[in-house]
């Protein structure tokens, strides 16, 4: 169960409107990811859905029933907090088992589920520690563990993986994906700032900007057909290159966007643009070349494999015409 | 040279405020000045305080106003007044002077005195055709009869007799009066012998025990003066044992008994002749540690003398300790109750503080405990008195 609808929801802190009217439908069993710049209201929105904050105006519906006033525990949700919110006086085991005890699960059942989750998150050797004896990543895993043992109808995750190392992150991400696949009915709402997480986990992504919804769609939609300059710039890492002025005018638009992976390095003579390599970043698997072609900022080009082009050399750049994004003065795409 | 004296005294009524006027003639005559250090009215607070100051040999205080029972206990710290006051002493009630004399040393000079009386409702006695009782047995009868009649008439909270039954010094006073007026002695006799374990004393207590819950509320065992006055002054009792202060207050305009009562000496009982009224009152003593003893002695003599006592009687209704003042016309005019008390005084009995010396408080505590136990039903009077005798001889040891 659990289709979630938000109708013109707003939230105001004091004089400060943080959520500025959001309409969104999250389908039953969907994996919805919220992304957006820091401070745009992702956590707040999550807290509104959880019932921890009261909605200032607008309606929140779970399966068609208005739940604005319903207490969190009656909404059938589990939540991972950005600040972890672990019980400081309880051992890791008890932190995870606490919510289950209520549900009158048997001791064995509780122990089984806690240990399973702990194994999954590689914290089984920490079950006897207090939160303050844990590293940052370990605390975060305890917080995740606490949510997943409870097996609810709606999962709310607020940046659950931000303190984990790459390997663990991939692994936990896969576990969350598996969880989602295994429990088809469970709706998941997930806040992240990690592109990979967003792209790989989401059924749909909602991009927030300053308390408003900017675009909602599948990862591919957002990536390929961003609805605005903002979304284009926000989705994808490294960021899409934006060119204005003459570069854009040549394509009949105000801003021209091209992703780093859609630019190929060619011979300066044959290329549409050319410039000097001013900076390079070597990620091992890829290289990012920063090429100054006369625009405001260098164009970033992704170059697979080893860096072969020395800094300072002049190179030519050819954008892939199929992947050029064109935007109006007001940031809307020209199609 | 002009000395500045410090005189510590419990703050009662306007005494502190009036003190300036009171000592003015003396200050003018001698050139000394005196500053009063007021203390809380609670005598036990005062006593503790004075003890500590005196034990530490404080020179900050030159004169102490002392309760009648303290003299023997603090005797060591005070200057002997026998010699300086040899002219003044004969004018006082001898019993009061005696109470302040310890081993021949006159520890303090009396400045005013106090004694309880029986308060009775004239109107009710009249209404029910009863005389003022002169024996405790009569009082019991009369109280019961009137109480029953008044309750039947709808005053559910009406009682026969209220007194001070709380376990405190006041109970020692009450009980001493019963015992003494029953011919049971005064606990410890002036020669130091322990006399309390006798049949009359037991009979007295047995009679009183019969009052609790019948003519006196059960709560009387927690009453001090004010509680008793409370019941009395709201018109809810026929008789009350209390000190003179209740007289003026009972005649206040808002009092339910205004003009309806009178006082008489306390009754006697057990076939014994002669009633008893426990002696209260205050005295002035000069500290041994004072550096201005001459001036202090002079002040003490002045305050204990007729002039000051008369003024006190007039302005504060304090009972003088000088016999002649009871016949003083000015006093009688200003404070009509003072002559009333003259009768009471002839029956006054001191508490055994002089013979028991420093152990008086303990003796008194044992006594009131025994009485309180008896009245609240813990053991019979005879048992408790026998036990008390044992305890007292323990405390006494070889001598007081």
């Amino acid at each position, binding site marked *: 169960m659990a289709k979630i609808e938000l109708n013109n929801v707003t939230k105001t802190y004091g004089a400060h409107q943080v959520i500025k009217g959001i309409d969104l439908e999250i389908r039953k069993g969907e994996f919805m990811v919220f992304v957006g710049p820091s401070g745009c209201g992702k956590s707040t929105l999550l807290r509104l859905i959880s019932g921890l904050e009261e909605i200032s105006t607008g309606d929140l519906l779970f399966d068609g029933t208005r739940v604005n006033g319903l207490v969190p525990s*009656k909404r059938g949700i589990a939540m991972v*907090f950005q600040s972890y919110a672990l019980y*400081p*006086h309880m051992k890791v085991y008890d932190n995870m088992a606490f919510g289950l005890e209520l549900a009158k699960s048997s001791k064995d059942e509780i122990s089984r589920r806690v240990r399973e989750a702990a194994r999954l998150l590689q914290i089984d050797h920490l079950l006897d520690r207090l939160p303050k004896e844990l590293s940052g990543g370990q605390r975060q895993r305890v917080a995740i563990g606490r949510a997943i043992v409870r097996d609810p109808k709606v999962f709310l995750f607020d940046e659950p993986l931000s303190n984990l190392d790459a390997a663990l992150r991939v692994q936990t991400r896969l576990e969350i994906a598996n969880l989602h696949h295994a429990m088809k009915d469970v709706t998941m709402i997930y806040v992240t700032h990690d592109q990979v997480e967003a792209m790989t986990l989401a059924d749909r992504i909602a991009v927030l900007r300053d308390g408003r919804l900017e675009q909602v769609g599948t990862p591919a939609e957002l990536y390929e057909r961003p609805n605005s300059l903002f979304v284009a710039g926000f989705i994808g890492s490294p960021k899409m290159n934006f060119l204005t002025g003459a570069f854009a005018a040549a394509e009949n638009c105000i801003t021209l966007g091209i992703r780093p992976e859609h630019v190929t390095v060619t011979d300066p003579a044959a290329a549409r643009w050319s410039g000097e390599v001013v900076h390079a970043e070597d990620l091992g698997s890829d290289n990012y070349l920063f090429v100054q072609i006369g625009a405001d900022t260098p164009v970033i080009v992704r170059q697979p494999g080893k860096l072969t082009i020395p800094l300072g050399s002049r190179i030519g750049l050819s954008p892939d015409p199929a992947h050029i994004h064109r935007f109006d003065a007001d940031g809307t795409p020209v199609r | 040279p002009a000395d500045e004296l410090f005189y510590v005294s419990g703050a009662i009524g306007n005494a502190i405020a009036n003190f300036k006027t009171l000592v003015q003639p003396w200050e003018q005559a001698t050139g000394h000045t005196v500053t009063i250090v007021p203390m809380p009215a609670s005598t036990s607070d005062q*006593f503790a305080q004075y003890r500590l100051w005196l034990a530490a040999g404080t020179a900050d205080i030159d004169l102490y106003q002392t309760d009648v029972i303290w003299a023997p206990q603090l005797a060591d710290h005070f200057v002997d007044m026998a010699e300086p006051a040899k002219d003044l002493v004969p004018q006082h009630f001898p019993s009061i002077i005696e109470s302040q004399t310890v081993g021949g040393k006159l520890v303090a000079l009396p400045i005013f005195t106090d004694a309880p009386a029986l308060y009775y409702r004239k109107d009710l006695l009249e209404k029910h055709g009863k005389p003022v009782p002169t024996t405790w047995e009569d009082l019991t009868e009369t109280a019961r009869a009137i109480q029953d009649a008044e309750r039947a008439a709808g005053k559910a909270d009406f009682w026969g007799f209220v007194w001070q039954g*709380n376990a405190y010094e006041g109970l020692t006073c009450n009980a001493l009066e019963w015992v003494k007026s029953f011919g049971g002695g005064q606990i410890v006799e002036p020669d130091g012998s322990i006399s309390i374990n006798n049949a009359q004393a037991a009979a007295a207590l047995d009679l009183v025990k019969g009052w609790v819950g019948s003519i006196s509320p059960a*709560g009387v065992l*927690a009453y001090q003066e004010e509680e008793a006055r409370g019941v009395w002054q709201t018109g809810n009792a026929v008789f009350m044992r209390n000190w003179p202060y209740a007289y003026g207050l009972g005649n206040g305009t808002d009092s339910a008994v205004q003009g309806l009562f009178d006082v008489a000496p306390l009754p006697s009982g057990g076939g014994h002749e002669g009633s008893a009224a426990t002696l209260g009152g205050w005295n002035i003593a000069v500290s041994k540690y004072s550096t201005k003893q001459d001036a202090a002695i002079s002040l003490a003599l002045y305050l204990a003398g007729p002039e000051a006592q008369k003024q006190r009687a007039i302005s504060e209704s304090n009972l003088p300790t000088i016999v002649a003042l009871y016949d003083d016309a000015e006093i009688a005019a200003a404070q009509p109750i003072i002559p009333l008390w003259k009768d009471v005084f002839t029956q006054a009995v001191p508490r055994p503080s002089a013979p028991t010396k420093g152990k008086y408080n303990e003796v008194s*505590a044992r006594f009131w405990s025994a009485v309180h136990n008896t009245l609240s039903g*813990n053991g019979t009077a005879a048992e408790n008195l026998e036990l008390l005798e044992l305890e007292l001889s323990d405390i006494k040891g070889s001598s007081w």
Partner: protein
Amino acid sequence: MTFLPLRSGEPSLLQQRQRAAFWFLAPMLAALICVAAWPLLRTIWFSFTDTTLSDLYGGQWIGFDNYLSMRTLSSGRTVWRGTLVDPAWWNAVWNTLRFALVSVTLETVLGLIVALVLNAEFRGRGLVRAAILIPWAIPTIVSAKIWAWMLNDQFGIINDMLLSLDLIDQKIAWTASADTAMYAVLIVDIWKTTPFMALLILAGLQMVPRDIYEAARIDGIHPVKVFFRVTLPLIRPTLMVAVIFRMLDSLRIFDLVYVLTPNSAATKTMSVISRENMVDFDKFAYGAAQSTLLFSIIAIFVLLYIWLGRVDLTGDSSR
């Protein structure tokens, strides 16, 4: 206390902090030694002498006689003397312990309830907080007298209320009767010191991190369970300290009994009896011995409590 030995050169962070700690503790210790050390030691010393208040400096050393001494009478009978065989003392000990146990328990429970109420957000909370503190703010002497008046059997308002509510059919002599005297003292003490507990616990409640309550709300944990499993453990240190100080105070209870039921054997406590001996009965040394015993009894109780309650004195296990 021992600080780690200072190694040569610059002090390390720990050493610097320990040095600071020393300077922070020094003034407090100095103040305490100044006011407390001499009086305490002096009283303990007095308890081994035959000092009286009339003669503070003339006491002779008599060893343990004030506590316990044995004398053989000429008849061959041996008698024991001293506080330790004084039935009045043991009666007082028993009264005090009973009183302390009941009052501290009830005050803790009531204090918790009041603190929880005050911790909730509602309008007029500030006023209610001030109102709650009133009993604590009235001088004990005065409040004892107010209650003595209210508990008076004849014109006391309590009996009046109970009568008009038909809860009793006869006026009760609260402070007079040995059966109810202890209740009277307890009622007043609870009334008076619950605010102390409540306020301290409230401060403890306010220091609990808020976000874990959110986690508990999400988990749907019943408020009662949250209270016992989350709130209570987290305020435990505060509660423990509050209880220790209440225990200390209740074991030393004096004013209230002194004013309300000064000489009733049913309520006479250790402090009252010790004062009685020191001041009223001129058995200063004997009273000092009783004070010293009282001190030891309190110390034993506090130590027991700290041990049984696993009070974390050093805080090492919580950091």
